[in-house]
């Protein structure tokens, strides 16, 4: 097992130890969030950009700084390429990072990406020097286009944000992985640990989640579970699972008693 002792991965030219990217939304307090982040073992975590007077939670930056976790600003809530590009630029100015998790959603009910606006924004931000991690749907064609315009990672959803429905279409995730030349991060829809394991088994490089942890009854414990889950999934993927068979196959030698 020596050859895979190092389970780290590379994204945007950097190396990360944990396969779990966390979001920070939904936690009932910074204390709860802190315990969950620590338990998750994450080293990359998203924040949203909001007006200072409405924010109420500026402490999240200080928390991430204290925990030594890399900040990944997102463009959550943006509905057009223009909004998303401006938000990414503000985040770069405010946080001093060219990294952005790019979200351009079509409506509040589904929070599904608007792929036309998304591709437009991705292209503009890449041209402007950003490291773009693009939240997208599970369409393999859109994923390839995002890579073509220069995104550093494609982040397909398992199911709509916050639904906890898991990975609705595993075959599409497999198709995205098969064609991708950049990391694939499963983003959105994770409800429980088995969903995260499945994402890794399908070949994703990492999993991004927030609600599944922050809104669980015990966020800290679910965070630990998710940390174990991505490691379990990576091991299973790399270990080479047994084939599925329709008929049984004895695990004990044939018995010869009369």
């Amino acid at each position, binding site marked *: 097992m020596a050859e895979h002792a190092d389970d780290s991965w590379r994204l945007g030219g950097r190396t990360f130890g944990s396969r779990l990217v966390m979001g*920070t939304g939904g936690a009932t307090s910074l204390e709860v969030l802190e315990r969950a982040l620590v338990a998750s073992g994450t080293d990359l975590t*998203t924040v949203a950009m909001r007006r*200072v007077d409405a924010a109420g939670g500026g402490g999240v930056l200080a928390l991430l700084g204290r925990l030594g976790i890399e900040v*990944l600003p997102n463009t*959550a809530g943006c509905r057009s390429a223009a909004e998303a590009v401006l938000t990414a630029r*503000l985040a770069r*100015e405010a946080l001093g990072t060219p990294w952005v998790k790019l979200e351009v959603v079509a409506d509040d009910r589904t929070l599904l990406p608007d792929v036309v606006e998304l591709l437009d924004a991705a292209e503009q931000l890449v041209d402007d020097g950003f490291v773009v991690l693009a939240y997208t749907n599970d369409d393999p064609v859109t994923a390839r286009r995002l890579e073509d315009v220069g995104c550093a990672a494609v982040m397909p959803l398992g199911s709509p944000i916050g639904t906890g429905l898991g990975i609705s279409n595993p075959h599409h995730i497999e198709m995205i992985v098969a064609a991708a030349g950049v990391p694939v991060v499963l983003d959105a829809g994770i409800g429980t640990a088995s969903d995260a394991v499945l994402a890794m088994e399908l070949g994703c490089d990492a999993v991004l989640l927030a609600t599944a942890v922050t809104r669980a009854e015990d966020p800290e414990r679910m965070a630990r579970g998710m940390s174990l889950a991505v490691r379990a999934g990576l091991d299973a993927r790399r270990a080479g699972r047994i084939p599925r068979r329709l008929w049984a196959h004895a695990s004990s030698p044939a018995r010869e008693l009369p």
Partner: protein
Amino acid sequence: MNVQLNGVERAVPDRSTVADLVRLASAPTTGIAVALDGEVVPRAAWGTVVPAGATVEILTAVQGG
């Protein structure tokens, strides 16, 4: 003069700068960014005078995503 500051119409002294508005909004001075009429104002340019009627947004990072 009046400006639209984070979505609220506010009366501010004429020839207020971006930095003045940041102070007015009680914003911290780190971890924030300012957009003036839809364009980012780099910190080095916070001395810029804000025109009357401008829309100013001051953002910071919050829990989310």
